[in-house]
């Protein structure tokens, strides 16, 4: 599965200057709003589903080489966070839906925890 497929199927809105999403493979998913759990449990190349949109989200996503962060419930990062994400190459995708819904949709597409 690639990121463009996910964006299309889930109607996600990229909010970073990310290009060529069809070239980004996605191999897993992790959902948590506690960054300490994400650091312990998320796998590189996976998507991270959260409603946290602060600066540390970018640092953690970058460190773990997350393929994209899906920000649910319209969580909006402020401009400094967006700049940092673009600088670090962290892809942020926005959705008005809840994390539960996004997880369900990803599961239906065949994505699994690992």
């Amino acid at each position, binding site marked *: 599965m690639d990121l463009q497929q996910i964006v299309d199927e889930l109607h996600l809105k990229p909010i970073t200057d990310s290009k060529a999403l069809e070239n980004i493979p996605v191999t897993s998913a992790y959902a948590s709003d*506690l*960054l*300490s759990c994400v*650091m*312990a449990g998320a796998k590189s190349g996976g998507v991270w589903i959260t409603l*946290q949109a*602060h600066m*540390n989200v970018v*640092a*953690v996503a*970058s*460190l773990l080489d997350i393929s994209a962060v899906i920000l649910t419930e319209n969580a909006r990062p402020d401009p400094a966070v967006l700049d940092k994400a673009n600088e670090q190459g962290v892809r942020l995708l926005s959705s008005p839906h809840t994390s539960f819904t996004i997880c369900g949709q990803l599961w239906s597409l065949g994505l699994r925890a690992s």
Partner: protein
Amino acid sequence: MIPPLIIGQAERLGIDLIAITDHNASANVSAVIAAAHGSTVHVLPGMELQTQEEVHMLCLFDSLVASSAFQVEVDQRLPDLRNNPEYFGEQFVVDDTGDFIRREERLLLSSANLPLEEAVQLVHACGGLAIPAHIDRRAYGLIANLGLIPTNSEFDALEISSQLSLSQAAELIPGASRFPLIQSGDVHYLADFLGTNLLTLAEPTIAEIRLAFKQEAGRALNHLPAPEQATG
């Protein structure tokens, strides 16, 4: 933001009591205390703990002995992750002039395996004050992460950020007015200093601050207008 500049800025603003509350750490406190010698600023050792629930809490102590005892407990409960300066920034330990001593290798940007209520008990056991930090903030705030102020909490006070006025906080945050409220600049840069808490104390100690929070025995906690309002 090196120790002499912190002290200099506090003095310039007429602030005579500050607490150093680094994230899960207290290695830089002694340098600030040393830099404060001969100034009008009294420095309280402390830390900003990140609990298991990812809530930030200020832990203030009278002495380095007390804050070190607390640090030992926290260290035992921090995950053994290494810092990566490229992603999380450097974690320097400096001396009283701001010169580099060493890097802190362990990642401080993590949660201690310590639930909030247990953390409060531990701070009290070390003779300190337990004050949930910036409770109004979305990131690492008590209300954002726990939804409400837990009943039967033994917090000594609640801290609100500079984003909200004290009256707004009392109004908007259910249960907040049950506690003494302080407002802090959460100073990461010298321009962040606020200086809006006015404590009437016999001396700058935890016991005195505790009395002031309770408005007992002639000690008091009052608030000055925030700098913008003062010049408005």
